[in-house]
């Protein structure tokens, strides 16, 4: 009796905690509300299974608790029941998986009009690079990295001249404009994660990873690193500011291009000369 | 007892019969042999992981991969013959595998001395292989300037994988050679005929040990077939 009661409390308590507590998903600020929908669908389906199986178990514990004169049933198997349960589970799994795969297709298919923004992760902070007027990011090489060229841009690539460098932990994004985030790391693994955007992806040194999103709500959102990258992992924070077009343009106008940076810094030009 | 094992069904129905039967799943397979087979299965996964890593590294690097047949070429009386040493090593290892197979056969026939001689031959073949590998390593390190971390021919991973994969295989061969010598001595001394007890395990010796040794040795040869194809010929 006691055992069944406590187990009952545990199962029901889980449900109560869900409704009673204020802890739940943060309000979504990107187009990935579809992820939330899939998550919530899964939450309720699995929640129902948890309640059903849990309560059934509690019932069995209470109903069939030890009695001296009771003899347990002898039933090695029940093919029909087992088949039905298998089928039901399989259907449930398909119902959970199918929407997931559809959303995943959206996730890996970047829209054509997405603007590329490069995020550079380092131990332990964030930098950004925008493609500038030509809309193309210049190529990079870790080996070019120096104090004067923190991004490791290829000085011979004409695309890199107008690239806009944002050497700041804050990234500004324009609302309702799809962006493709190109993720690059120069040292360890990092992960560019904004909880309100839902999406995340590791940044792997030696290659470029990506994901895309459309910010749908203005505001300031915290950037977290979501892949252990050393002692300073927990402190690798930044901010994304999602702004209306006017604010965004103002901000953009204040940023300097790579060429300007070059002009300001003779030594880097000298480096380029030497390299040729 | 013979009639039990002789009348076992064969093929697919044998499979279901064996798995459904009591006592043993591998009929007529002694414990030691079954253990060696399962160990080799596990070892296969080790070598597979090495070779899969090699494939991944090679296919994902943008730096040029050195041409193995040039790097491992040998100047033979003024003529550059590609992969010559490797070819000879392959032949040596296959030969030792052949002598091992014959040793196993004589082991079953309880021809003590013949068996011991062929085991010794096999061991010498293995020793030759290791010796040639040592020669190859020194040549690469001192003459070609190849290091585990870099090499003058191209992708750094070339040297890394070369030393790691051949080193791991060479370790297998060396261990095999040591055991072959031990086995040869035990056979010659007649341990398997007198069921003398092992020094460490204090279990009775048995000619099965030769077949188990054989399995290991053939496996080493088998791995070399794959290394030859994927490292040297690719």
């Amino acid at each position, binding site marked *: 009796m006691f055992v069944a009661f406590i187990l009952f409390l545990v199962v029901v308590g889980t449900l109560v905690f869900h409704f009673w507590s204020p802890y739940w998903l943060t309000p979504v600020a990107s187009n990935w509300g579809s992820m939330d929908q899939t998550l919530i669908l899964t939450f309720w389906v699995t929640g129902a299974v948890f309640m059903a199986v849990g309560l059934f178990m509690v019932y069995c514990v209470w109903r069939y608790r030890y009695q001296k004169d009771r003899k347990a049933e002898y039933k090695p198997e029940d093919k029909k029941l087992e088949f039905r349960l298998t089928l039901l589970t399989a259907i449930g799994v398909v119902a959970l998986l199918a929407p997931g795969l559809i959303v995943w297709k959206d996730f890996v298919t970047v829209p054509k009009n997405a603007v590329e923004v490069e995020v550079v992760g380092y131990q332990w902070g964030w930098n950004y690079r925008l493609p500038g007027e030509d809309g*193309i990011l210049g*190529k*990079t090489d870790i080996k070019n990295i120096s104090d004067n060229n923190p991004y490791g841009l*290829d000085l011979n690539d004409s*695309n890199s001249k107008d690239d806009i460098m944002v050497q700041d932990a804050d990234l500004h994004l324009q609302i309702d404009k799809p962006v493709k985030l190109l993720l690059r790391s120069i040292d360890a693994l990092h992960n560019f994660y904004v909880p309100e955007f839902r999406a995340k992806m590791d940044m792997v040194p*030696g*290659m*470029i*990873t990506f994901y895309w999103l459309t910010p749908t709500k203005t505001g300031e959102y915290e950037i977290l690193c979501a892949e252990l990258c050393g002692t300073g992992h927990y402190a690798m924070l930044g901010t994304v500011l999602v702004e209306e077009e006017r604010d965004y343009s103002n901000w953009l106008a204040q940023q300097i291009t790579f060429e300007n940076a070059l002009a300001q810094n003779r030594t880097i030009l000298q480096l380029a000369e030497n390299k040729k | 007892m*013979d009639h039990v094992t*002789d009348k076992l069904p*064969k*093929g697919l129905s*044998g*499979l279901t019969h*064996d*798995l459904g039967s009591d006592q043993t*799943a*591998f*009929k*007529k*397979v002694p414990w030691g042999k079954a253990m060696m*087979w399962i160990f080799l*299965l596990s070892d296969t*996964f080790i070598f*597979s*992981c090495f070779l*899969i890593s090699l*494939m*991944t590294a*090679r*296919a*994902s690097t*943008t730096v040029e991969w050195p041409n193995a*047949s040039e790097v491992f070429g040998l100047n033979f009386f003024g003529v550059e013959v*590609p*992969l010559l040493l490797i*070819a000879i090593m392959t*032949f040596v290892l*296959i*030969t030792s*595998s*052949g002598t*091992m*197979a014959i040793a196993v*056969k004589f082991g*079953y*026939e309880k021809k003590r001395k013949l068996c011991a001689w062929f085991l010794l031959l096999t061991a010498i073949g293995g020793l030759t292989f290791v010796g040639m590998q040592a020669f190859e390593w020194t040549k690469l390190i001192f003459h070609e300037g190849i290091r585990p971390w870099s090499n003058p021919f191209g992708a750094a991973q070339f040297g890394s994988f070369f030393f790691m994969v051949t080193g791991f295989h060479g370790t297998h061969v060396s261990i095999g050679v040591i055991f072959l010598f031990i086995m040869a001595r035990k056979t010659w001394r007649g341990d398997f005929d007198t069921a003398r007890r092992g020094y460490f395990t204090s279990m009775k010796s*048995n*000619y*099965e040990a030769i*077949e188990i040794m*054989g399995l290991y040795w*053939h496996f080493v*040869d088998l791995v070399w*077939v*794959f290394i*030859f*194809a994927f490292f040297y*010929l690719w």
Partner: protein
Amino acid sequence: MAQENKQEVTTHKIGVYLWIWGLLFVFSFFSYMVDYLNFEGLLRWALILLFMFAKAALIMAIFMHLFWERWTIVNVLLWPMSFILVFIGIMVAESEYTFFTRLFYFVVGT
């Protein structure tokens, strides 16, 4: 006891081994010639893999006596290899993906 009834099964004429031995030499020689004669592309790979699997099959079947073993052990040993095949397939796709992102962003440029 265990030996007696094995004797008839696993002891073979020495000729079998010599034959296989010879065949292994021939296949090794062929695969060496693939390199020596500088075959390239698909043909090279088809031949290398063909000879490789032929040699592997001969060693396992005859030298390691799998041909004479019961099906149980053969199946138990060979089925796990399918995991390796999946691993190989995935890693082929993965390394190509890595290669192209590197080529695209670091070598050729967008």
